[in-house]
């Protein structure tokens, strides 16, 4: 297997888009191709994450039409669906195909137009990635799942729920602070100075999670150009190498041993670390799936950055902010930047690449630039997990 590099990245503004999904993806893809200095003629395959296009624009098979829209020719173009992890599993497979030697240069990424669905219908369609037979009739929602996890987390670690809610609020405050500094974020220049009380007193969505514990519905797209590592320097002065990938699957919520320690997340992260021959202590920067404040804490623990039950205190103490032990979601994360679900994994990679080039927004850019970065993307209620470890050197 060959090493694989990212040589170009693109990212639309997240939020409410007047453009169609095809246009959003084209915009991100053309940015990525321009960034890499390649033309459509060089792209041999397209790997596109898109979770709910059938409900958003009555469009299935969007990848083929995206390839057509970009005049990429009759290349293989495949839609990947892993709910909110759709783009990450698309990127992971793109990496595998280039690593195998079947393709030398491919386009990968994702797109979603979820905000346009409106809250009630978006909540309905998002809930479709819960286990439909058992969680469907209950009327479980994603905020509901993580609200249940938060209550369980409080019990497991003996933290009074009110105290946990205050600590969870720091995730929202941090991610909104960085989202407010990110011109591509849905909440750019908004809510950059939240206080604990603002989060606690916002409208209750699923008790104990308020609106400010939750990421928004969003429209947007992000894309990457990947090629064989040995060719990367021909296109880019600062290629970023994919050093490790992991993916794992979960089950219905009721079959999980412990919803505060999802096995799928632990396994996927371990797979990526093993593949990269790295450990959590080697990683300088994280972009992780903070769909809800509690989700960021669970992710940090599952990935091994903090011991079980320690991430809440660590976050409240600033250990996951810039200058802390492990800066996390300096793009604003899903909470501050927005969460067009099919695009999120590609957006996470985009921001790690930008950070490694020293091109993130001031206030969000870590200094010195990170050597190693890692993404964590979650689909459904722990149903699909994917991790990518990136580095500035090929090793």
């Amino acid at each position: 297997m060959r090493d694989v590099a990212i040589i170009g990245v693109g990212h639309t503004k997240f939020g409410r888009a007047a453009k169609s999904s095809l246009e959003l993806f084209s915009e991100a893809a053309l940015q990525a191709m321009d960034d890499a200095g390649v033309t459509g003629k060089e792209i041999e395959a397209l790997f596109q994450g898109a979770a709910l296009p059938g409900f958003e624009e009555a469009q299935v098979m969007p990848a083929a039409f995206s390839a057509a829209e970009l005049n990429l020719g009759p290349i293989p173009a495949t839609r990947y669906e892993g709910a909110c992890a759709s783009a990450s599993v698309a990127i992971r497979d793109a990496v595998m195909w280039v690593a195998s030697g079947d393709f030398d240069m491919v386009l990968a990424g994702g797109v979603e137009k979820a905000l346009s669905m409106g809250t009630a219908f978006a909540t309905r369609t998002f809930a479709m990635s819960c286990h439909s037979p058992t969680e469907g009739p209950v009327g479980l929602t994603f905020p509901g799942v993580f609200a249940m996890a938060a209550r369980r987390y409080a019990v497991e670690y003996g933290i009074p729920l009110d105290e946990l809610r205050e600590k969870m609020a720091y995730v929202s405050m941090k991610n909104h602070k960085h989202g407010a500094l990110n011109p591509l974020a849905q909440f750019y220049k908004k809510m950059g100075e939240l206080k604990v009380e603002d989060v606690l007193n916002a409208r209750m969505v699923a008790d104990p999670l308020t609106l400010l514990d939750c990421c928004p519905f969003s429209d947007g797209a992000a894309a990457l150009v990947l090629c064989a590592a040995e060719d990367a320097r021909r296109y880019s002065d600062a290629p970023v190498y994919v050093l490790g990938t992991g993916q794992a699957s979960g089950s219905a919520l009721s079959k999980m041993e412990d919803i505060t320690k999802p096995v799928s997340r632990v396994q996927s992260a371990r797979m990526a670390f093993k593949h990269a021959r790295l450990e959590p202590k080697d990683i300088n920067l994280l972009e992780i799936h903070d769909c809800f404040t509690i989700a960021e804490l669970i992710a940090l623990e599952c990935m091994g950055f903090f011991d079980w039950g320690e991430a809440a205190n660590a976050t409240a103490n600033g250990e996951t902010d810039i200058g802390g032990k492990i800066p996390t979601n300096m793009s604003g994360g899903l909470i501050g930047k927005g969460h067009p679900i099919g695009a999120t994994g590609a957006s996470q990679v985009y921001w790690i690449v930008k950070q490694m080039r020293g091109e993130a927004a001031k206030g969000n850019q870590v200094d010195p630039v990170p050597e190693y970065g890692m993404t964590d993307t979650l689909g459904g209620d722990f149903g699909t997990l994917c991790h990518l470890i990136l580095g500035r050197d090929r090793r």
Partner: protein
Amino acid sequence: MVGVGKTQEEIEKELAKQYIPLSYAEYEEALSNGKLMGLKCLSCNKITCHPMPVCQWCSGRDMERVELSGEGELLTFTVIRVAPEGFEAPYIPCLVKTKEGPNVIGRLELEPEQASQALIGKRVKMSGTYTYKGDKFSGGAHVCPVFKIVEP
């Protein structure tokens, strides 16, 4: 007839083999009749519920149908305040660890104002069912168990 190929009878016989020891439709029908049904594994003796084609603990294929007591412990819950299309908030999804072993997801029969963290760990018992009328995506109506707190 000679040569390669199987007879229609042979193929039909293969088709007749059963792989689903307790279907969802049967599970839901039992729920509607007030019964929480599961499957007892003849290899590891543990109970699978909701039903699966294989034992949820050991992947065993030999399982027999059993009725669960409907009793258990409240593991966690939430009060949904923003509902998806087709549902009306507030309502209380919950996760219950049954006396027989497996966890079951359902709803908690309780006034939302009374839903406090102190309820976690309390004993619950299945008290009925909730029927979701379904929408154009759900493949018809579906049923889930409803639990109530039985420990003060």
